[in-house]
């Protein structure tokens, strides 16, 4: 067998746990959870109503956040992004384009923001530094020549499908049972404890009852709907955003607006495409979110401010995805933190179940670690997280290993 890594460490289970964990949701977080728990020795089954990563995960623009975007608002989130982007780089290198990024101040107001921004980054452990606009434009001539200030940050971009799939591949190698196209229809709660889920496959309406010792809802924007199945009220705000891709790779680096987070402020390369994102609104139902085509013109206009000429390129696709904001809001949700939380539902009368809410793709591994820690604590078992330690197998091995 031929391997591309000189030193590929194969993850192995050191101690089997006598507990079966059911994960609901086959996105990035579910993928990282399945791997984490399987590596800790649990018997793991993961259920996803559609194809893996078909909810929010796969539609992500793919920015690997250094955390710079969040540094002024929340140093802790920024620090976590920086740490996790380096971990992902180490464990899934072939799914990441690590070309760095540039924050661009277009007007005087944004330029005034630069010092505070760089300081906040450095306080968060992000090695950001201001560079001359001419230097930034020597890396990426697409950057607006009218830029007032430019800051280098260690951003990158990743394949929003293949990165999670590498976690799934690792989980499956460790014995996790990964079941796409399997919808949870009911969560059985007996004597104050979640004990089983009932599932239905789409075609043929096959039904199956799965008994388990613990249920983790890693269903992102769907956490409210999954919670309801157990009679829970999970505070989640599905927040759809529209993204637009044009043909042509105008930049290898991620370009961001040097301003507080807002609509249309990041430009991410992806193979032969350039993506501008994102807008934000709120929805009751995260299912089947379609793009608001009226937002396309706005996104193109914003993209032109960062990289003039963007809107002259042929539009390749316009699509939308629902972020899983943790909490509730009466506004557009921008005020909600992008932090994540693991909620134990024991105090609400459903022991043996937790929901993961909020978070961002870059911190998927850390989200899984915290949630798996809670599972261990609540089951009274002692097993440490080891997902930082191994290079993940190729996503290709997930499909190679068989159909179910």
């Amino acid at each position, binding site marked *: 067998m*031929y391997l591309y890594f000189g030193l590929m460490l194969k993850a192995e289970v050191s101690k089997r746990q006598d507990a079966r964990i059911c994960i609901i949701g086959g996105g990035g977080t579910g993928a990282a959870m399945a791997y984490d728990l399987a590596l800790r020795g649990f018997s793991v089954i993961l259920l996803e109503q559609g194809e893996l990563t078909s909810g929010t995960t796969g539609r992500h623009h793919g920015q690997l956040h250094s955390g710079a975007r969040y540094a002024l608002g929340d140093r802790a989130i920024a620090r976590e992004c920086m740490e996790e982007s380096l971990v992902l780089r180490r464990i899934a290198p072939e799914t*990441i384009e690590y070309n760095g990024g540039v924050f661009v101040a277009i007007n005087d107001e944004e330029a005034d923001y630069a010092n505070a921004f760089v300081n906040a980054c450095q306080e968060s452990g992000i090695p950001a530094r201001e560079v001359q606009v001419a230097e930034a434009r*020597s890396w990426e001539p697409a950057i607006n020549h009218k830029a007032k200030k430019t800051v280098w940050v260690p951003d990158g971009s990743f*394949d929003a499908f293949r990165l999670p799939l590498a976690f799934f591949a690792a989980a499956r190698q460790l014995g996790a049972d990964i079941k796409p196209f399997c919808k949870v229809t009911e969560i059985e709660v007996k004597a104050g404890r979640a004990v089983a889920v009932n599932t239905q496959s*789409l*075609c043929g309406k*096959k039904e199956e009852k799965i008994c388990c010792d613990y249920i983790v809802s890693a269903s992102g924007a769907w956490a409210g709907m999954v919670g309801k199945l157990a009679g829970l009220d999970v505070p989640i705000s599905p927040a759809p955003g529209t993204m637009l891709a044009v043909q042509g790779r105008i930049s290898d680096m991620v370009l961001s607006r040097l301003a507080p987070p807002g609509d249309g402020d990041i430009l991410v390369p992806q*193979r032969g495409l350039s993506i501008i994102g994102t807008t934000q609104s709120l929805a009751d139902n995260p299912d*089947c979110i379609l793009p608001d085509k009226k937002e396309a013109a706005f996104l193109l206009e914003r993209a032109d401010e960062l990289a003039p000429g963007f809107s002259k390129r042929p539009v390749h696709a316009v699509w939308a995805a629902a972020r899983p904001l943790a909490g509730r809001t009466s506004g557009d949700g921008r005020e909600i933190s992008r932090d994540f939380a693991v909620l134990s539902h024991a105090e609400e009368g459903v022991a043996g179940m937790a929901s993961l809410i909020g978070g961002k793709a870059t911190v998927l591994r850390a989200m899984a670690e915290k949630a798996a820690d809670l599972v261990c604590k609540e089951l009274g078992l002692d097993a440490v997280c080891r997902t930082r330690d191994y290079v993940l197998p190729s996503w290709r091995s997930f499909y190679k290993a068989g159909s179910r």
Partner: protein
Amino acid sequence: MSQRLAFLLLIKNDCGKDGQADAWLEFTLEAEPEDTVLDMLERLRGEGRPVPAYRHSCHHGSCGSCGAVIDGVPALMCLTRAFSLAAPHARTIGGPLTEPAMEKDGRITVRLEPLAKMEVLEGIAVHPGRLFGDIPDGLSYLVCSDAKDKAELPPEPEASSVNMRTIQKGWRQRLEACIECGLCVAVCPIKIPFIGPYALAAINRERTKYPAHEKDMLAIADKPDGAWPCDRHLYCSMVCPQAVYPAKHIQLLKNSLLRNRKS
């Protein structure tokens, strides 16, 4: 306001291993000209209609999961737009453009089927395992190159250092163009054992990037089910949504094998 188009979608509902007979399910809906086939399926599903299972993830032609046979030709559902189905389009690879099929009431008929040669899970969702079955898992997916007209990039933070053969300092990284959608494999007319266009394109890329792997890669191409069964129908290159041109890679492999035999 753009004019809405009326469609009759006929979706093959194969229940895969579960043994139910194939059936075509019919759905009537309206779409904006810019809507994609995937948008249409999502809208139907959102309305609670019993749409057969389909695969999808990125919705912009990057993941490669939503391939299907659309009116006889394999394509990505997320990049096939309503207006192109309402206009004359080919019903076979490279075939003549034909007016869309219409119902008496003016609805445009579009047929969706699962990709050929793949194991059908449910509906039009297939398992793409056969794509990857014949190649080493570890074929690289990153391309690292000098940007020529652009300056060298600042180095990565040191903590990210990983034993990667692909990365050279200051060079630019990019994922391979191939999104492993399998359209090329589904459309290939070769009937004898053949590892197929996707695998051969991937191994040709590997040896191009890493000359040290030339021997291993050529050995795969030289097997009876390697490059030799290819008859150059070129359908693979015609359906590729990413302009990978698998047929070109196959020919380059054959050329090298023949050259090695002579010498």
